[in-house]
């Protein structure tokens, strides 16, 4: 028997079991898919209204901004599909002692805890986001297609997902320290709110420090901004420093969250029998 578990095999089984489960509760699955797609549609409608009054928000024209929104939807749908149900469940696992079982398995505990459920219903948004992207990109003023965009865009979308995941799992892991029902997980929603807007709007005595904090301390501003710029703007050397920084930021975030998670597991107390 090989000594390392097949991580891909385990993940595919998680995905398969989750799909079987979702199909058992079909109505719930459909409702969830529809409600998340409508939420996105409403968001989009809101910005469509805003762009009736103005041509630019902080330098982003209508279709450029739609590319930005599509990128937000794309990244969020991936996070919601693969990571969010698990991070949410972590404090429950701590409360009930279900984490015990995860710790017994000969496989990386963070992997197991982060991916054991896949929420397939959230992938509805992924499809909508791709459609919006396909619609908006050609309509961007002065759009010039470069094959590099097709390579870089997916890469930076995935890096963005990793940053959001890192912040999420590190915050959720605090429930292992804080114990029952207590977690900093909700902060994820407050913090990531800031990532949903172009960096350029953070200016002035309040905006600049916010931009710096959310770029260099908790790097959530690069999550959407970097891939969105790659797709919406012509590729230029000016973007390179931020793009290089995003790679570093992703690596640091993943390492940081790994450290927090391991530290937290070490102090796990387990629930009473």
């Amino acid at each position, binding site marked *: *028997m090989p000594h*390392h578990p097949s991580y891909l095999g385990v993940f595919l089984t998680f995905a398969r*079991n989750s799909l079987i*489960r979702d199909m058992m509760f079909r109505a719930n699955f459909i409702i969830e898919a529809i409600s998340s797609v409508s939420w996105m549609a409403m968001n989009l409608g809101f910005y469509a209204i805003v762009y009736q009054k103005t041509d630019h928000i902080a330098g982003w024209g209508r279709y450029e901004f739609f590319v930005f929104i599509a990128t937000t939807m794309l990244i969020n749908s991936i996070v919601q599909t693969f990571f969010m149900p698990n991070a949410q469940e972590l404090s429950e696992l701590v409360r009930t002692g279900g984490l*015990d079982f995860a710790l017994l398995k*000969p496989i990386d505990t963070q992997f197991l805890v982060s991916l054991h459920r896949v929420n397939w219903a959230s992938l509805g948004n992924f499809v909508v986001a791709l459609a919006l992207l396909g619609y908006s990109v050609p309509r961007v003023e002065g759009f010039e297609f470069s094959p590099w965009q097709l390579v870089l865009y997916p890469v930076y979308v995935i890096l963005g997902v990793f940053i959001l995941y890192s912040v999420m799992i590190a915050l959720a892991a605090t429930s292992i320290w804080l114990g029952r029902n207590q977690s900093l997980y909700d902060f994820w929603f407050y913090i990531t709110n800031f990532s949903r807007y172009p960096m350029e709007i953070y200016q002035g005595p309040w905006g600049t420090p916010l931009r710096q904090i959310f770029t260099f301390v908790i790097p959530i501003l690069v999550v959407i901004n970097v891939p969105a710029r790659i797709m919406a703007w012509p590729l230029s050397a000016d973007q390179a420093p931020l793009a290089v920084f995003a790679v570093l930021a992703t690596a640091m975030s993943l390492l940081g969250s790994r450290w927090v998670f391991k530290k937290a597991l070490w102090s*796990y107390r387990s629930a009473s029998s």
Partner: protein
Amino acid sequence: MNAIEIRGLKKSYRVYQKKEGLWASLTGLFQREYRDVEAVRGIDLDVEQGEFVAFLGPNGAGKTTTLKLLSGVISPSGGQARVLGHVPWQRENEYRRRFALVMGQKNQLWWDLPAQESFRLHQKIYRIDTDQFQRTLDELVDMLDVRHVLKQPVRELSLGERMKMELTAALLHSPEVLFLDEPTIGLDVIAQHNVQKFLKHYQEKRKITILLTSHYMKDIAALCRRVVIIAHGDIMYDGSLAGIVDRFSGHKVLSLQFADGRMPSDLARYGEVLEVVEPKARLKVDRSSIAKVLSSVLANHTIEDVSVEDPPLEDVIAEMFALSAEDDQTAPNNSPVPSPQP
């Protein structure tokens, strides 16, 4: 060879002392009082490969904590332990492939899915090759007689069936050491018996090392030659089940049936009167004086029937727990008697 070696193993928890009332709860936000609870207080234990050992003790005695320490779920405050040569709380994959933990009060199977989907997941996690997996699974489901419910969602199974599925899941990777935490809790007599029968058979066949905690004396009498009694975090006894009575009970129970209803009124001079239902009486008599008392009774009264027995094991153990609770009022959960039998 020892499968399990424990030296001076300790675990204490800091517990937040919540006071009653809203005001106290609010002040508790700023000023917290903590108390240290010693769940395990430096135990030493060796278990040989292939032994089937029972942990017996009241609620809060430290049994489950010990099993969790040995499974590496939690780390100790002091002391050492090695299981199959590994330090459990280092959580090495190599160790985690070689043991299993089953908890009677917790469920590790996917609740909404048939158990076989969870089994398939275990196959992937432990990377068991397909032939071997199928063989082990067939063997286990036949032994436990659960083939007919393999395709039923776990939430629709009876408690007994679910426990059998939990056992199957735990044994799929053929562990060398098995920790069982109250595997028969809440089961009816028949399901309990089935689980016992399975465990006995499986252990004899595979010669694996099993550490079992239970409240049910019947589990232990049926399965384990060696019993370790743990109360308030300390080991109080380590030996055979029968040995408990010899060691901890200083008396015997003398049952008498008097002829023609001639029951003497001064029975108490022979020993402590436990029960009188004329013409029968039961007395508690010091072990050392049983011969003297018996001959004196036979000389002075007309006796139709007589028997001398050891007190029931449950009573001896309950008495022992009560004593240890008196010795130690500071320990948590001072419940002196084990849970009632179902």
